[in-house]
Each structure stands twice: as structure tokens, then as C-alpha cells.
């Protein structure tokens, strides 16, 4: 899990300012300002959608951290890929103590998605039919679409679904009966 350490956030605040900008200033800061050659290496803005607090602003130091450009670049692509279309969505299940997150982009279709959700939450999705939804299942997958409506997963083509899905919710069968009615 992400927040597993209970650290005093102030003491461990990540800062990449030049020496002299922190409380423990131990050297003379008479260095010339370095030209910032890292324009393409990412901006210190809140990137992750699961962050509760905005990260502290940092001065990015040239050549720090010491990783090669091609590594930095390969990570940048990963980030931008994840951001477009809101591919990481929250998944909640009735009765589960905390939510999960999954990346819709790695799945090629509904069967794959359901398998992943089943693994994650240890339940079984029933058989889908257009007429009756997941009638007969104990749990039913639903999602919130762009309009804020709660929809049954599986009705629309996959591409349309991943572009519209904002979050997922696995609902107890008894509550979902209303969604299964068509027309």
C-alpha cells in the first residue's frame, strides 16, 4: 500500500532545491544559477489522481537525480499514457474495507476485466445477457459514466466503455436488480 509509513511529513518532505534552501544550510551558496536544461523532464505538478495533498514545489536541479535520459523518457511516456482518457479508475466493492485501482488500458475486453476484478476481490461475475444483465449473480459490476450515471458494465462496446468509465463499483445482486431491466 502507498501510505504505509507514518512519517512526519515535514521532516521527510522531498525537496530538490539547491543547497542553502533548506533549514540545515551548511555551505555557501555562491554558485551561479545553472541554466535549466531539464525542460522536458517533467513538471512538479500533482500528477497522481490518488494524491490527497499537492506535492511541495521543487527547484529541479540539472542532472539530478542521476539517471540516464532514456530512462527518464521511458517513464515520461508511461505517465502520459496513463493520464489520457482516465484509464486508472477506482474500483469499490460493497462490504470491502478499502477501494482498489485498476488500469483499464491493459485489458483488451470485458472477459479480461472481469477476471482481474474477480481475482482482486474474490468474487464471481455471473453470466451477462442483454436482456437480464447479470441476473442470478450475487455481485454485479457497475460503473459511473461521464454523465454521472450508474450503468451496468457490458452493455456498450469495450472502446466506448473505457472512454466513458470514471469509476467502477461492484454491487450486491439484490441492489442491482433495477439496473438489469431493459426498456
Amino acid at each position: 500500500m502507498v501510505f504505509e509509513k507514518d512519517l512526519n511529513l515535514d521532516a521527510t518532505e522531498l525537496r530538490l532545491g539547491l543547497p542553502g534552501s533548506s533549514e540545515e544550510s551548511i555551505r555557501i551558496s555562491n554558485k551561479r544559477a545553472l541554466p535549466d536544461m531539464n525542460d522536458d523532464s517533467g513538471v512538479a505538478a500533482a500528477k497522481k489522481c490518488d494524491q490527497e495533498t499537492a506535492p511541495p514545489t521543487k527547484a529541479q536541479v540539472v542532472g539530478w537525480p542521476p539517471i540516464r535520459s532514456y530512462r527518464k523518457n521511458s517513464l515520461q511516456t508511461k505517465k502520459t499514457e496513463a493520464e489520457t482518457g482516465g484509464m486508472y479508475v477506482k474500483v469499490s466493492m460493497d462490504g470491502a474495507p478499502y477501494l482498489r485501482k485498476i488500469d483499464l488500458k491493459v485489458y483488451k475486453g470485458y472477459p479480461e476485466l472481469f477476471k482481474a476484478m474477480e481475482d482482486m476481490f474474490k468474487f464471481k461475475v455471473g453470466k451477462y445477457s442483454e436482456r437480464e444483465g447479470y441476473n442470478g449473480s450475487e455481485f454485479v459490476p457497475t460503473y459511473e459514466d461521464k454523465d454521472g450515471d450508474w450503468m451496468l458494465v457490458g452493455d456498450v462496446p469495450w472502446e466506448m466503455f473505457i472512454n466513458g468509465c470514471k469509476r467502477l463499483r461492484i454491487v450486491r445482486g439484490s441492489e442491482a436488480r433495477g439496473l438489469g431491466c431493459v426498456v
Partner: protein
Amino acid sequence: MNYFPDEVLEHVFDFITSHKDRNSVSLVCKSWYKIERYSRQRVFIGNCYSISPERLIARFPGLKSLTLKGKPHFADFNLVPHDWGGFVYPWIKALAKSRIGLEELRLKRMVVSDESLELLSKSFVNFKSLVLVSCEGFTTDGLAAIAANCRGEVNLGALERLVSRSPNLKSLRLNRAVPLDTLQKLLMRAPQLVDLGIGSYVHDPFSEVYNKLKIAIQRCKSIRSLSGFLEVAPHCMSAIYPICGNLTFLNLSYAPGLHGNKLMKLIQHCRKLQRLWILDCIGDKGLGVVALTCKELQELRVFPSDPFGAGNAAVTEEGLVLVSAGCPKLNSLLYFCQQMTNAALITVAKNCPNFIRFRLCILDPIKPDPVTNQPLDEGFGAIVQSCKGLKRLSLSGLLTDQVFLYIGMYAEQLEMLSIAFAADSDKGMLYVLNGCKKLRKLEIRDCPFGDAALLEDVGKYETMRSLWMSSCEVTLGGCKSVAEKMPSLNVEIIDECEQMEFNLDDKQKVDKMYLYRTLVGHRKDAPEYVSIL
């Protein structure tokens, strides 16, 4: 005087393969020098500007394999301008003109133009192997000259045929453009593979292709090294499990899509792993799994998955301590982390006295021990004291002159030291220069070391390959002084902002200085902003 004919000595020298040993052999006497130089086939040149191609060719007429390194290490982190130097063309040109039967060329941090590649491909009948590490300057056109079968885009059919015709193919690395069914076909044709890199691994676990892939992978019983997974569907990793038990090298440092339980499950199958390269999204918990599973582990590299982020998906000192406790054979480390404590480093030093390479990078470069708020002097001190064979060390975190006192005192085998944002005064640098007798490469950035430290013992630099200092306190006058006293060194000032042009005051601080020993004087290919004093 020789008691044996030359041929016998030559035969004996054949068994001596390490560069250091062969260099020593050549210094014994004139006769041995002569025999050694005629029989030498592999030469390693750590700084391409320390010697000229002509002298190399003159001394080693039997040369078959040449390794050349160009730019200083900090070029990897954008601290050296692209056209600073390290051009391979003059070497290839000189070798091509000569009678040298070159078979292998290994280059690191060199600039390799398409022209050089073309010349290379035309000039050596027996040429077998070209290895480029961190090089630049070429395009696919240049590579096409070397590998006649591969042009432009990946031609999948051609790739399949190539693999079919290559029963000795040991290493195959694919990028994202190779689809799954091609991967499956390639693996079916090359079950003898030793090293496999998979670019894209995203698929439907219910598909026919996936089933075929599972079978193909199982046949590859020789695979010892696995890498890639640039795109990955985590729940399909179970197809890989059958070969995990044989892996000695696993490189997942480009696979941010693999983390959490799926990653841990994968690692649990890799009991014979000797080298692991991973992203920090493995977390401390994941490193705990590594510690329990990978008892043969010798090398661990943990890269940051979010170098400029707020540090949620990262590792701390805990992960490192776990690995040190579980993997007693650990001898090489590169570890990017959020924080480190002295206590942890002391524990690691006790658990793993065999470190040869210890490179720690705390993402905030001047961060103290978060528990005690102290500098990390004691922690690193414990490392150098315990690891008597330590050859390479990179420091980070809040550090005073004290840590350098320890390094000078204890790091007797140290050959390469990287320092950033550390120390209080010249004393730090002096401790190192006076103490580390085997030091070859010293690279320093953003430290308060000035002329007094630089000039204390200029003779020392002749015993080293190179010294890099950037954003320190050394002045133009200090650098000139070194150059004057030591004609066997090239002292380069890299001044991209061209401030030196307008202000030739000796008291001016130098932004970037790179000095190295050489037998061939000033190089002629330096760009305008580099002054060689």
C-alpha cells in the same frame, strides 16, 4: 634473459587474459614487452584521449578486439554538452588504413556517426561484434550498413525467417512493435535462446495466441536472462513462471506496469536470480520478498519510477536492510530511495561485507537521517570500514567532511568515487586524495572544494584516469596552475555560457573542469567552448 623460446612464453601469456595482468607482464623486461605486444588481441582504453590510434596500432599489430570509452560519466546526466568529444571516426579510419584484422569493437559514451558505421562495415573482413553502450550520433541508416538484413521498420516475416535460420541465436530483444503472435512464433523457432527481451506483453488470457505462447515459453529451457515488458498485462505473467526458475538475470526496470502482488508472485518463482534490476514501485515489501526468495542474489539495482514526484511509490532504508539480511552474496548495489538512516547503513555493512560496488542515491541530495536528523557520515563510514573490497562508491544525503575522513582511512581498494552536494571544506577532498591509493576516477559536483584542495598534490592526478569537478569552488587560476605543473595532464574547462571569454580573471570560478592524464597532449577536436589550458 629468456630461458624459453619466445613461442613458449607466448603460449604461457595466452592464459593471462585480464588487462591488468597483461599490462604488468609487459613491464617485466624488454623481451617480455615485445612478446606480449605481438600476442595481445584485446585492448581496453578507458579514455580515448589518453592515447592515439596510431600508437595503439603500432604497438599491437595483432589487435582483434578494442574497447573505447569517451565522455566522462557525468555525461549520462546531461552535465556534458553533446558535441564535447569522444568521436570514434578517427579510430575507425586509422584502423581501416592499417593491417589490423579487427573483429570486435566495444564503445561506451562515444559519438558514432553513420559515416563511421559505414566505414566500419566495409573495412574488416572478419568483423563479428559491435557493442554500443550509451553512444549517440547514428541513425538506422548507419545501423543498416552493419546489419544488412534489418532495414527501416521491423519486417516481421523477415525477422521470423532470420530466427529460423539462426540455430545459434542466443540473444533476442524485441521492442513494442512486435506483436504477440510473432513473439510466439519466434520462441517456437528459437528454444535455445539464452537472453530474451519482450517489448509488448499485453494480451487476452483467454485467447488462442496466449495458449500457444505459454507452450512456446515452456520450451525455452535455456533462457537465463529476461528483460523488457515495456507494456505489460500483469495477470498474464503466469505464462512466464515455468522459466523463472532458471533465470539468473531479470531486468524489469522498464516495466512500471508490473507491481504489487503480481510482481511479487513473479519474483517468488525466481529462486536462482543473481542479478535483479527493478523499479522502486516494488516497495519495501516487495524487496522483502526478494530477500526471502533470491538467496543467490549478487547485484540489485532499484531505479526510481517517479524521479520528480512526491515519492509515494518508492523504497526506503527498510527494503535495503531486508535484502542485506536475506541475500548474503550481495556485492553490487544501485539504490534510489526516499531516505536512508545511519542505523540501516550500519546494519547493511554488517550483513554484507562483500560489496564491490555501492551506489546509493537519496532522491533529495542533502537529506539527513530522518530519525536522528544527523548527517549520514557514520553510515557510509561503516560501509567503507566493513567492505574491504569496495571498488566503487557513490554518496548522497547530508554529508560533512567526516565521511571523507572515513573514506580516506578505510577505502583502500576504492577505484571510483562519485560525490554530489557534500562536505564542508577542502579537507573533504584532501582526505580522499591522500588516503585512497588506488583511486582512478573521481567525479565531484556541487561541493565546496577549491584551489587549496585541487593543488595540494597535483602529482596524484597522474596516477588516476580522470578528475571531474563541476559547480565547485576551483578557479581559473587554480586550474591553470595544475596545467602548468603537469604537462602530462589535459586540463579542460567546459564553459558553455561563454563567461570565460569576457572575463579572463584568474579568480573566476570554473563551472566545469575535466582533467585526465594523456600521452598525446592536447586533443585537436575540442569544440569552441572547451579550453584546454
